[in-house]
């Protein structure tokens, strides 16, 4: 890739991710609507929502810690953007990785939640305070499970901490990998704040909780960050658990060569992404919200047990060369 083209590419990535995120938002709303026998919003509705919010007044509560309150959405947004850039990099230029990027990814994935906790606790609202404490507990709940799930994959791929290598070496169809994938899927459900884990926002309990005091452009930034998470988190799952996201076709196009045989892997990759997204949406629409203590128990006890089993299976499988374990 020539240097100008390279620069152009990275300029395209961020707006592209935002657009994809809004599209994913629309898919979430449309599929939910179809499940619920509603018509659902038009394609551009998430975009209209953000534009409308951008034009609204920003109200900051009188007793809020203004700087933290205002900075939090930007920090959260920066975190998910960085994460998505890292994941695109893994997909587009797998040859130039850096060691241990999975650990960086874990950190970047916590960043939006941390920013949300900071921002809402700075808003001096009792509803937000309840939401904050719930979000904190939730993060503590699912973070452990997510890390354990990643350890399963790391064991299976022989100890590499490199996302690009993991993407190529994962044995998708093995018991331990499927277990780890399911748990990680639920962790992503919680990270996205989807039912049954929308505990921190719980509209009918604490009236949007953590987001309660946000308005105008700041709320729009949160919405955008959420939209990007809808791209980045399923993409992460696809890369780590489902054998990677193959975009060789696109890189070839960027280089100026058109290779029709490479279309299929790309389509297949997109299918994997959509599959993960639809799974998330279906879980969202077939469950009631759980209580925070139930969520923590779920992640620590049930998911914990499943993951320990998966780790044992993976270790046995690795040492004895049984790839389906």
């Amino acid at each position, binding site marked *: 890739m020539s240097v100008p083209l390279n620069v152009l590419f990275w300029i395209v990535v961020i707006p592209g991710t935002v657009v994809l995120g809004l599209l994913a938002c629309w898919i979430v709303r449309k599929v939910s609507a179809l499940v619920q026998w509603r018509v659902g919003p038009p394609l551009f509705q998430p975009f209209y929502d953000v534009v409308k919010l951008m034009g609204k007044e920003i109200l900051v509560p009188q007793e809020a810690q203004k700087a933290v309150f205002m900075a939090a959405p930007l920090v959260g947004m920066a975190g998910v953007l960085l994460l998505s850039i890292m994941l695109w990099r893994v997909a587009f230029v797998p040859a130039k990785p850096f060691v241990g990027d999975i650990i960086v990814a874990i950190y970047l994935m916590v960043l939006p939640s941390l920013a949300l906790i900071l921002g809402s606790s700075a808003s001096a609202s009792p509803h937000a305070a*309840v939401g904050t404490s719930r979000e904190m507990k939730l993060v503590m709940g699912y973070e452990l499970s997510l890390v354990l799930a990643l350890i399963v994959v790391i064991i299976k791929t022989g100890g590499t901490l490199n996302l690009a290598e993991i993407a190529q070496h994962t044995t998708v169809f093995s018991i331990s990998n499927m277990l780890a994938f399911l748990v990680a899927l639920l962790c992503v459900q919680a990270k996205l704040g989807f039912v049954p884990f929308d505990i921190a926002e719980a509209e009918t309990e604490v009236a949007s909780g953590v987001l309660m005091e946000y308005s105008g452009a700041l709320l729009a930034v949160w919405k955008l960050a959420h939209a990007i998470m809808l791209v980045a988190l399923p993409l992460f799952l696809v890369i780590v658990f489902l054998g990677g996201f193959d975009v060789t076709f696109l890189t070839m196009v960027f280089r100026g060569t058109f290779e029709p045989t490479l279309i299929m892997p790309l389509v297949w990759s997109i299918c994997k992404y959509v599959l993960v997204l639809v799974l998330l949406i279906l879980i969202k629409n077939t469950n009631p919200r759980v209580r925070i203590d139930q969520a923590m128990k779920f992640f620590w006890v049930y998911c914990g047990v499943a993951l320990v089993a998966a780790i044992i299976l993976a270790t046995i499988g690795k040492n004895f060369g049984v790839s389906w374990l």
Partner: protein
Amino acid sequence: MNQEELNNRLTEIKDKLTAVEQPADNRIWLTCEAENSYEINKFLFEEVPLRFVIATGIDSDDCFEVLYHYAYDETGCMITLKANIGDREKPAIESIAPFLPGAEWIEREIHDILGIDFKNHPDMRRLILSDDWPEGVYPLRKDAEKPVSRPDGEPLTRPTVQSQSPARRTVPLSKPVVVVGPFHPLQEEMEFFQLSVDGEIVTDIDMRISYNHRGIEKISESLQFDQVPFLVSRICGICSASHPLAYVQAVEELAGIKPPERALYVRTIITELERIHSHILWVGLAGHFIGYDTVFMWAWKYREPVLDLLEEITGNRNNYGNVKVGGCREDVPNDLIPKILKELDGIEKKMEMITKAVLDDPVLHARLKGVGVLSKADAVKYAVTGPTARASGVAIDVRRDDPYAAYADLDWNVISQPEGDVFAKAVVRLLETFESIKIVRQALEKLPDGPVAAEVKEIPPGEAVGHVEAPRGETFHYVRSDGGNRPVRHKVRAPSFVNVPSFKASCIGGHIADVTITLAAVDPCYSCTERLAVVDNNKVIHDYDTLLQLSREKTARIRKEML
């Protein structure tokens, strides 16, 4: 205890009473002086024991009366204790709330509207009048005039909705408080709960209602007997068959009118269809409250055919305006019966699916079982009714206990559950839907031929009570006539009025997440609960004529579009 034994029991307090009347087997009217009312009430509630229904305050010409209505559900007997307060200047009576928490709200209400002081009442704040209502103006007194301004000279406006207004706040500011209301995504109506919290645990709850007053009881006094059903059906869109029916039954009892057989069956069919759609509505809302929006949307979709049926029979999806004194306005056409039966089959199948889904869902079990428990003792103390009582093991149902309409001829069961938690309330409502379907089917099969209305001439002087099992519980109406063509007093007690205060017993100690679903589990209806005080905006935006003009134009427009 049968009726005779009950009568014997009541003779124990004979010497404290000034009069005893028993116009029918299961209607007893007792009269006493205000000084004795506390003891007699205590005897009736604790010793007999009777179920407290409500109290009515009346401004008679020379005195004030407080009527305590009780029910003995085993024989369906309604017992009313009349306490006369002679002192018109400073009317006062002993409060019964200390031993009967279910009477706390109604005493506050009577204090608001009639200015009767209840001695030793634990919490004599205003319940239904707005904060800027002037002191010493009691809207339900016969000499009351509409106040035009507040004491400070400001014009009277709509009730001020201030979430933290000092007059309304009882919980100290040092404690963290999570407020639900006055406008909150939990419920579509205005309500105001202040939850004192310790982390996620709710340690205390304070309730405020009264953001939606329409002065139904006051308006009712200015309407003729046959106009009132239209008014009371507008108390609540969902219970719009039960309220008029309870009123009409009270008037029919007062005047000794017997409606024709077919009318009784038509009433049964309408009220049961109403129960079906109301219970499905609750299932949907309950799903929404715990974040299960799919259940919300599905349940409401399944509810639509019921509303369509009601529209086909009465002309309206809600506010049917179908009952009148002496019978019904609209008949169930015989050629519609096959269609109703067919629709019922469809609804039954879908409800079976939903019921199975709810009863088998492990997440719902985890979320609803053992949550917001209202114990049987508390259910009795707060005098709750309907599914709220039946889910706490108090198996009362007006339809069985004091049969009206055609219920006595039909075969059906009263559903009750002992647990008292939110799950039990859901189970009761879901299973009741099937009973209702059963009732409608039988009523359609047995529907006798004949007219649906008897002729009514005069309403004699007297007083009577009527009660109906509405979807949310017992709807109670009391009517007094002086022989003219308007009621001199018409008291309405909607089920939520006694169900909502029971939150004090069921919410404290729960998580915030549990409390919100508990608040919704009694299926509260605030427009029913708040029907009384007169709110005068003093600003006429549309007067009667322009409104009539507007609605005529709209009707004409719709008719044109339909053709």
